[in-house]
């Protein structure tokens, strides 16, 4: 029954997508608004199919319907309820179901939001593109990744449960859905970018319309990535949170392009420039999403996160090739026609800084992508497999991150068009002093190493600039001053600085050791004392855990454990973390006592400022929400280059409100922003 409903749902979704494509294509080719209207209706069939299939699978999981192969392979009667629900996305086929649901949700939201413009060919092309993507993923589930396959032969009475690492921590309920919500969310701006290129209409409000979508997707992806790092830290047991693992890189690459886009789009709104850049960034974001999906699910790269090898590889690769062909063809065909005639007067200006920002992020993405796929390229050339691991990424990305921190500090202080030293001097004075003060204090506290000090200094520089802008906005408009794109963006910048500083500190000053301790024995590491008290076996419904009790600093008792799951060949470690504002004490049970009362080997990792990473992530989320809210509006006809009296008198930059183009305020014939 579940299988039947599930398969029907998938088939419905696929057919709805395909029929929608055909209808819209016909309507766009023959210029029939009625077909465009009816083409939109297939969105609801798509959504019903996705929802139905998902509900069928959850029902099968919750009722332990082992006649379904997916449930037989990944479900279990002993798994706790929460992890049974999350089994939906704990394995390959189910994760595609989640993807498809999120995508259908976004397409439906677009249909609702743009329902008044349903006959606009721009919206028509965007919907068509979204349908094409949905058709691909539904098609995957009809073919190689069918989650509703039935078990051959005897129906088992119980199953092995999901991967033990995915049953260890409640975060598994949040990280994948949020990550997917972000990842998949970029399909909407991608669809609109394709539509804009196809119809040739770039200089209009579609950009402003979809800005919030992109911001939302970006915010969700940011949270998803940070939660992934948190999950990696809390669950995997190696004490780190970011390993430049191929799957991590796959989620990071679209984030980089989307961040570049969110900044560069401001130049397009203000001066109509960098249009082709913006389109390319959006198209690249989505392409990298598909490439990342391929790398994650094809098994060509070794990764601690990878799903098991599957037959999906060729299909996703073919789709990636198709996306690349479409993207390249569109840019090659239309790109030069859509270039704006404006120019950037001086590199020392806000536009120049954003252009530099674009280049830096593009370089960052290039380095990460190169490092990720290089083992495959090298193997293709001379058959020898080499590894490109953390040392490479750390070395290569460090200068880029430092340059970005510098830009983060300087760019908000730069005016549009042209800067004068007087203005810069005035605006950057306090942030510069903050930076130097931070370096001096760090040196006084014993921090050594030019790289780390530079990172701290530049971080303080950027944070100082952001705080200064927020302070001025708050002084001017009170709490309302904190809302709006510019100020929300400053909060996000502060979050980024916090994360960068935490990253630098925890990488440079971590301590790691293993101690063989008898019950009652203590060890010291980096100013903390850990005392092993003893170990005992605890039976949980889904695992048998050997828990050690370790007292940290004479206060809290932590319980790192080794868990044996019934169908796993080796025990899985459950680390225990004592989180603190200055540092984290991270404990793992490496080896339990061989007899009761015997010695145990306890692994201890002490890293400073790890909790700041999660705080920084939270700040970025808050900043995104602030930025998504509407702020002060400028008059649409206020020229971008006009210098306000405030700026001239040196009182500070005018906090930028959001520039919104309302159709009502435009006279007939004027396209709005200078430069189109």
């Amino acid at each position, binding site marked *: 029954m579940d299988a039947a409903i599930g398969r029907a749902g998938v088939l419905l979704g696929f057919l709805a997508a395909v029929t929608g494509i055909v209808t819209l294509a016909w309507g766009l080719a023959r210029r029939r608004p009625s077909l465009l209207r009816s083409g939109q209706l297939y969105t609801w069939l798509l959504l019903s199919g996705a929802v139905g299939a998902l509900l069928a699978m959850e029902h099968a999981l919750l009722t332990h319907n082992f006649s379904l192969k997916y449930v037989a392979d990944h479900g279990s009667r002993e798994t706790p309820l929460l992890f049974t629900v999350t089994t939906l996305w704990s394995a390959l086929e189910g994760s595609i179901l989640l993807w498809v649901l999120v995508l259908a949700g976004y397409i439906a939201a677009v249909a609702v939001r743009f329902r008044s413009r349903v006959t606009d060919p721009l919206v028509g092309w965007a919907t068509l593109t979204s349908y094409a993507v949905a058709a691909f993923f539904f098609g995957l589930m009809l073919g190689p990744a069918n989650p509703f396959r039935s078990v051959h032969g005897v129906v088992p009475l119980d199953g092995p449960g999901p991967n033990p690492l995915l049953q260890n921590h409640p975060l598994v309920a949040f990280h994948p859905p949020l990550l997917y919500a972000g990842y998949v969310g970029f399909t909407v701006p991608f669809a609109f970018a394709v539509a804009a290129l196809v119809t040739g209409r770039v200089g209009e409000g579609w950009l402003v319309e979809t800005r919030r979508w992109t911001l939302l997707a970006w915010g969700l992806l940011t949270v998803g990535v940070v939660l992934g790092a948190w999950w990696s830290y809390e669950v995997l047991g190696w004490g780190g949170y970011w390993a430049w693992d191929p799957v991590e890189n796959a989620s990071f690459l679209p984030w980089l392009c989307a961040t570049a886009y969110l900044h560069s789009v401001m130049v397009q709104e203000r001066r109509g420039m960098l249009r082709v850049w913006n389109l390319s960034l959006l198209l690249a974001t989505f392409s990298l999403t598909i490439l990342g999906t391929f790398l994650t699910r094809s098994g060509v790269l070794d990764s601690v996160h990878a799903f098991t090898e599957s037959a999906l590889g060729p299909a996703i690769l073919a789709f990636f090739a198709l996306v690349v062909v479409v993207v390249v063809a569109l840019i090659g065909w239309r790109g030069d026609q859509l270039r704006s005639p404006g120019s950037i007067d001086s590199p020392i200006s806000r536009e120049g800084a954003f252009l530099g920002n674009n280049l830096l992020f593009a370089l960052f993405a290039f380095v990460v992508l190169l490092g990720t796929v290089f083992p495959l390229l090298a193997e293709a050339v001379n058959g020898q497999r*080499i590894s*490109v691991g953390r*040392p490479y990424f750390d070395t290569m990305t460090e200068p880029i991150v430092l340059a970005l921190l510098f830009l983060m500090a300087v760019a908000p202080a730069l005016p549009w068009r042209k800067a004068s030293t007087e203005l810069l001097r005035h605006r950057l004075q306090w942030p510069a002093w903050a930076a130097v003060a931070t370096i001096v204090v760090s040196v006084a506290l014993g921090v050594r190493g030019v790289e780390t*000090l530079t990172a701290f200094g530049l971080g303080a520089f950027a944070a100082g600039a952001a705080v200064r802008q927020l302070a001025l906005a708050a002084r001017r408009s009170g709490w309302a001053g904190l809302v709006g794109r510019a100020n929300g963006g400053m909060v996000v910048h502060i979050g980024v600085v916090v994360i960068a500083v935490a990253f630098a500190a925890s990488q440079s000053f971590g301590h790691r050791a293993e101690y063989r301790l008898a019950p009652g024995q203590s060890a010291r590491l980096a100013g903390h004392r850990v005392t092993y008290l003893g170990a005992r076996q605890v039976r949980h419904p889904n695992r048998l855990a050997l828990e050690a009790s370790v007292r940290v600093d004479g206060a809290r008792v932590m319980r790192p454990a080794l868990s044996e799951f019934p169908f796993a060949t080796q025990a899985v470690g459950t680390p225990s973390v004592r989180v603190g504002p200055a540092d984290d004490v991270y404990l793992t049970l490496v080896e339990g006592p061989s007899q009761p009362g015997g010695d145990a080997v306890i692994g201890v990792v002490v890293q400073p400022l790890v909790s700041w990473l999660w705080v920084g992530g939270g700040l970025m989320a808050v900043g995104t929400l602030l930025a998504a809210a509407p702020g002060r509006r400028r008059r649409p*006809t206020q020229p971008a*280059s006009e210098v306000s009296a405030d700026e001239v008198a040196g009182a500070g930059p005018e906090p930028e409100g959001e520039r919104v183009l309302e159709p009502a305020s435009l006279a007939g014939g004027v396209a709005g922003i200078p430069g189109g």
Partner: protein
Amino acid sequence: MTGAGPGSTARLPAQRPPARRRRWLVWLPWGALVVVLVGALAVGAGRSGGRESVDHRVQRIAGEVRCPTCRGLSAAESDAKTAEAVRDDIRTRVGQGQSDGQIRAALAARFGPDILLRPEGRGVAALVWALPVVAVVLAVAALAMAFRRWAAVGHATPTEEDRALVERARGAGGE
């Protein structure tokens, strides 16, 4: 002087002739800043605590070597038995006085070059280090060319019909 656009009506503060003394005074705090910065960095540049301990060196070298049985972790981070064996081997070799490069080569001689997390060697492996540098050079060159082209083109000046269009818009639709 401060980047006001054409036709702007912003008033600029009265200009005093920049006396030498005034200009020098203005730059003084920045000069002090630079001096303090350089001083702090000079003090902070040295390694803390003197020479690297054996433990530290073993951890560092192990951090550049894969753990053989793990997926994606280094021998320093993993607590697997094989990672421990690698660390013990490194410790023995450090005790024998081998250099970092020799230790890495010895491990690669047994596991293959993909045991090293930092790609080494001439030929193909060197590309992964060279390509980003090439990309930076190309990007800077392209940027320089673009700015030169924009500077040569000069500023756009509005024509009469442009002005008329803007007047119409401001008169008709301005807020």
